[in-house]
């Protein structure tokens, strides 16, 4: 007994498998039903949205050393913009885009910080969203929550994480997060790590017209609640406490600005089985939206 129908369906499926579906981030070929890119582990939903809905989002990265507060910042930013009806609003595209916000907010409302972002790219949270602004066209953006350790690994040993390399090369703007209390306390590691990141960016795309030297970079001092004076004049704070970064930005980046943000009003720590855990004593965001707003303006979206 023959089963013609089944054979026919299979052949269609086989045919579909033969057509490569390029990843939106790294451009690598994938099967049409892949959930994550097999090369860079970015969600393939981005590629499907690009082909079927003709949406070509621009990319924005939040980078910084491990523990600088990238997950908290991005989570807080997405939540604030999706909650407030103001001149800037954010609408998530696809359920996967809400995971970061959900993860960060669930932790903060319990007065905990979210867990460290794992190094494996397939476990990162990606945000694809539409940003609505008054009297301006909506902007489509992709913002992944990159792991700080993976970032530094890629900077020290290029091509360890191809997804980071291809993503940063395509980014239209970047937010560099710096731990303000660490910088204030004189830990030069903070300065060196951010200098490495800026240097990596500038070497990544060296084109004079379209390279990182001309793309907008917002430099954000995080955890401002623990060093109030960084809010007064972030640029002066950078000059005093991260002189290397300040000088490098002045010399190598044409469009950059310093900002200060804070999410927790005050912090403490609790002794858990696996060691000391930092806990926020309350959540009162300060200056979260300004760096993002400036970046959007500079990107000209």
């Amino acid at each position, binding site marked *: 007994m023959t089963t013609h129908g089944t054979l026919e369906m299979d052949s269609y499926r086989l045919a579909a498998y033969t057509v490569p579906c390029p990843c939106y981030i790294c451009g690598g070929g994938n099967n049409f039903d892949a959930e994550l890119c097999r090369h860079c582990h970015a969600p393939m939903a981005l590629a499907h949205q690009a082909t079927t809905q003709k949406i070509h989002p621009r990319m924005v990265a939040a980078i910084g050393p491990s523990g600088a507060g990238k997950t908290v910042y991005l989570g807080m930013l997405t939540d604030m913009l999706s*909650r*407030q009806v*103001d001149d800037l609003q954010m609408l998530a595209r696809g359920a996967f885009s809400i995971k970061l916000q959900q993860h960060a907010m669930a932790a*903060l*409302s*319990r*007065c905990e910080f979210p867990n460290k972002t794992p190094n494996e790219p397939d476990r990162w949270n990606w945000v694809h969203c539409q940003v609505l602004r008054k009297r301006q066209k909506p902007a489509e953006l992709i913002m992944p929550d990159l792991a700080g350790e993976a970032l530094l690994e890629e900077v020290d040993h290029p091509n360890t994480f191809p997804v980071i390399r291809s993503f940063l090369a395509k980014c239209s703007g970047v937010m560099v997060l710096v731990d303000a209390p660490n910088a204030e306390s004189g830990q030069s590691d903070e300065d060196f790590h951010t200098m490495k990141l800026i240097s990596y960016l500038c070497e990544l795309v060296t084109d004079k017209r379209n390279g990182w030297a001309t793309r907008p970079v917002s430099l954000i001092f995080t955890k401002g609640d623990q060093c109030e004076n960084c809010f007064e004049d972030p640029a002066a704070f950078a000059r005093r406490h991260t002189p290397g970064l300040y000088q490098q930005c002045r010399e190598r980046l044409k469009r950059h600005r310093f900002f200060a943000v804070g999410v927790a*009003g*005050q*912090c*403490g*720590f*609790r*002794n858990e089985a696996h060691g000391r855990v930092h*806990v926020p*004593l*309350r*959540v*009162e*965001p*300060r200056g979260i939206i300004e760096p993002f707003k400036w970046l959007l303006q500079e990107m000209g979206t």
Partner: protein
Amino acid sequence: MRRFPNWTLNKLLVGAVPACVLLGVATGHWTVGAGAAAAALCALAIRNPNWRPRWKWQVAEPTDENNQTVDWSPPPAPRPPTARRAAADDSLVEQMIAQGREALLLRPQIAANLNETDLASAQVALDEAMAIVPQGAVNMRARCYDDFEEADAPRGERLVQVEGFFLDRFPVTNAQYQLFVSQGGYEQMSLWDESIWPAVLGFTDETGQPGPRLWQQSKHPHGKEDHPVVGVCWYEAAAYARWAGKRLPTDPEWVKAGCWPVATEANKPVQRKYPWGDAMDRRLVNLWGNGVNDTVAVTASPGSGSVGGVQQLVGNVWEWTSSSFGTWEPTGRKVETAAPLKSIRGGAFDTYFDNQAGCQFQSGEAPLARKHNIGFRCCLGFCDVTLSSPSPGRGTSAAAATEREEVHA
């Protein structure tokens, strides 16, 4: 030698000017007349440099039927409960009441020396400014209470007995704090803890003058008279309270005023999550979600009062309490901090999560921190004041309070 009074000589000089002119014209020696008139004018000018002739006709003041002067000036604007002014000729008692320091007058040592009228005025002022919170038990919850399983929940709460007390109906406003600053509160070292004396010189505003951090030239921001004072550290709040004859509320006192526990047959009292009930109502409070992003007047949300009439316990500004942070955490779940913190309660205009503005939520801040979103209100124990006309449920003096305790026992 007899001296003319000033006004008589002035009148003579004024009269001399036309007289000299007329005499000069009539006699033909007009130069002499003009010279004499000019001399009289010069003398008048030297004697009274600021004197102006009143050429206007005097208009009789309108009077009422009883032949008393009617005041046509517009009626005074209704004053918020937190801002009162004292006239210079007020008696000391009236001035102290106007400054919001009636609690000092009602201290047993001082009240004994006041007459009945003054005592009654002070009591009325106290009733206006402060609400009564009766004595009773309040259930204090740890921050980590929600993390416990049901069986373990008792580990995260503690029943605390609180004596009856008065609590400010509103947080202390800029206008009230201005009086403290203007009266030299930062120079009266007796108001400050001795340990903090070296730091008091550093409690300055943006211009380096004594005052809250965000003020300028020891003056509060214009148009924010009735906003709660912010930018004051715990010690400044405590000094103000001492100046006003009051103190900062303890943690259980603050929670009791907000949660308003009701003793039932159950083991623990029934308590509210927010002063008005168990559900958040964003229209009643100034939190991040409202989009104001700044303090509002203390009278801005009249519906947010507690059962006892204490307003704005939740939202607008965090409030310092006299207790230490972390007192209610069970062993093994303590939150450690670099330095000891003081407890703050109630959430502020930039508090993001509703659950962190609830009456049971405790946060902490360093006692020397002068944050933009922390204010305070004061309280006063029943036993600290003398009240002449006792009312049910209210203490009248230390002796009466003791007596009541014995009855309860």
